[in-house]
């Protein structure tokens, strides 16, 4: 009787072990397949014109130059806004607000904003900046991206500041430094790599975002540096091209998808390397 029960237990556990191995294999295979088809089709979509020419009309030769530059401009503007606001907000949560009611409220809302559907951020910015001024613009697009990046930076800034030893703050006080100089010159410096990691993660996140740009910066056929006008971006161009009926546009969309994926994965890897050097595990 006892040995029968033991056999049943070990069979159940063995089945569970096989299940875990199997689903992991299936999951990794599926994801590897996605990356593989991205690589194959993406490389096929990139040629010498991809980086030197603008959006083509269907049937003619063209590239992604305007979209790539547009993406870089809007992401850079968004990051400039998001780093200032995010680092200051994170500093407030960690150093001033701490466990007050208001700080907990902000923290909760920040977490909601962190995973809020990005298409709604796009709708919000449309209502807030596009509709009142009667025009899609790169500024509106950058603003929408910044709204997605800020919560990430706020969260990581707060987390790394909280990890800094109290002795650092006390050292600042002992030297007679005003609180804000201590934060600036001691805490921010020692938390620097952590904050940078947060910034990189935020950058990786926004550089692949499509939905918030659809109704804010729209799209533009040509290279354009006017920030108050529509501006092309890589994700939006991919979205439009992929849904078009033309094979060459679809090919271009795959090339663009590969470029984005490489940029995003590269940034993520960089962020990991920075964290690992600082906190070897």
């Amino acid at each position: 009787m006892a040995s029968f029960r033991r056999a049943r237990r070990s069979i159940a556990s063995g089945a569970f072990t096989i299940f875990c191995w199997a689903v992991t294999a299936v999951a990794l295979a599926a994801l590897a397949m996605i990356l593989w088809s991205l690589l194959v089709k993406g490389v096929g979509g990139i040629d010498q014109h991809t980086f030197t020419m603008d959006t083509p009309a269907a049937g003619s030769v063209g590239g992604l130059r305007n979209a790539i530059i547009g993406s870089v401009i809007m992401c850079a503007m968004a990051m400039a806004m998001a780093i200032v606001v995010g680092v200051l907000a994170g500093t407030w949560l960690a150093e001033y607000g701490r466990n007050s009611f208001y700080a907990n409220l902000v923290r909760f809302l920040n977490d909601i904003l962190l995973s809020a559907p990005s298409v709604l951020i796009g709708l919000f910015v449309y209502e807030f900046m596009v509709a009142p001024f009667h025009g899609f613009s790169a500024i509106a697009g950058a603003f929408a991206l910044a709204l997605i990046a800020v919560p990430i930076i706020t969260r990581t800034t707060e987390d790394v500041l909280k990890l800094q030893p109290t002795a650092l703050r006390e050292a600042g006080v002992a030297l007679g430094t005003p609180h804000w100089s201590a934060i600036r010159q001691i805490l921010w410096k020692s938390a620097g790599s952590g904050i940078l990691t947060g910034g990189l993660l935020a950058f990786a996140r926004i550089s692949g975002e499509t939905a918030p740009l659809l109704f804010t910066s729209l799209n533009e056929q040509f290279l354009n540096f006017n920030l108050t006008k529509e501006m092309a971006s890589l994700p939006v161009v991919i979205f439009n091209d992929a849904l078009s009926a033309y094979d060459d546009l679809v090919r271009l969309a795959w090339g663009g998808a590969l470029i984005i994926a490489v940029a995003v994965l590269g940034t993520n890897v960089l962020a990991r390397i920075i964290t690992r050097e600082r906190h070897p595990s």
Partner: protein
Amino acid sequence: MSVTDLATTERTRPRGAAFDPIFKWICAAAATTLLAALTGIVVLLAIGGWPALSRFGLSFFTSTDWNPVTDVFGGEGPIVGTLVTSFMALLFSLPIAFGVAVFLVEFCPRVLRRPIGVAVELLAGVPSIVYGMWGLFVFAPFFASYIEVPAMSAAQPGSLLEMLTQGVPNGANILTASIVLAIMILPYMAAVLRELFLTVPVQLRESGYGMGSTTLEVVTSITLPYVRRSAVGAVMLGLGRALGETMAVTFIIGNSHTLPKSFFDSGSTIASTIANEFNEATTPMYTSALIALGFVLFLISFAVLAIARALLGAEKAV
């Protein structure tokens, strides 16, 4: 500074101390922008959607008549489509994510543990438009010719299978959309669950093994009870992601506003409807109806995310 100096000068405030309160206010203002942003989203979506909500009232939620020509909008199709695809995606990916997380914590050979763990976390960051393109160009044609067509031709007329598989066999339907969504949230959920499982103290698990428990028993009676609350929170976070996902779904769901009648029927979600139609909305009522849909999505995902955060607890949030 000499002794006489110290005697003659009063103890002055350090240079720059006057800026202290100003800096504090600047930081507080930055924190308040977060509050303002979320409030702004709620208020502007509510205002923008109000014309449609007030004109169609309850029928906005109970009618599937989405007709831009006659300016009549009922959002039941996209709302139900959002819920159905998200829950189906969760149903598909939860057991797999759970298995992967357990594998990484319990079974994985030491050499592979780090590479697979890192791979899972990196995949969680791949932009969703990549998953969308794969779904549209690779998965949908495959699914149509190897699963849909055989299933539909095998179905007896009048049988349950026929009811569940009716539709156009082009791969763009709610089932494929759910599967692509499931693949997309899988690395994310697996990474979060793995983090949670790693918080279980090793002593607890080892004492389980010491008592002679099998791996299955350790997982079900030690690991899972230990992380129960947070695990539900992690699952809700995954659900929140699926609810608001736009690009992975828009490509592949087929974009029809009727209620999906079978697994192979095309449908739509709130996010895909907004992404597809917002820039083509010609009348103010059309725009307002789309924003009203956005408002509904906001309420749904706010509720899901709020519950998730409450369960996860502030310090464990990912």
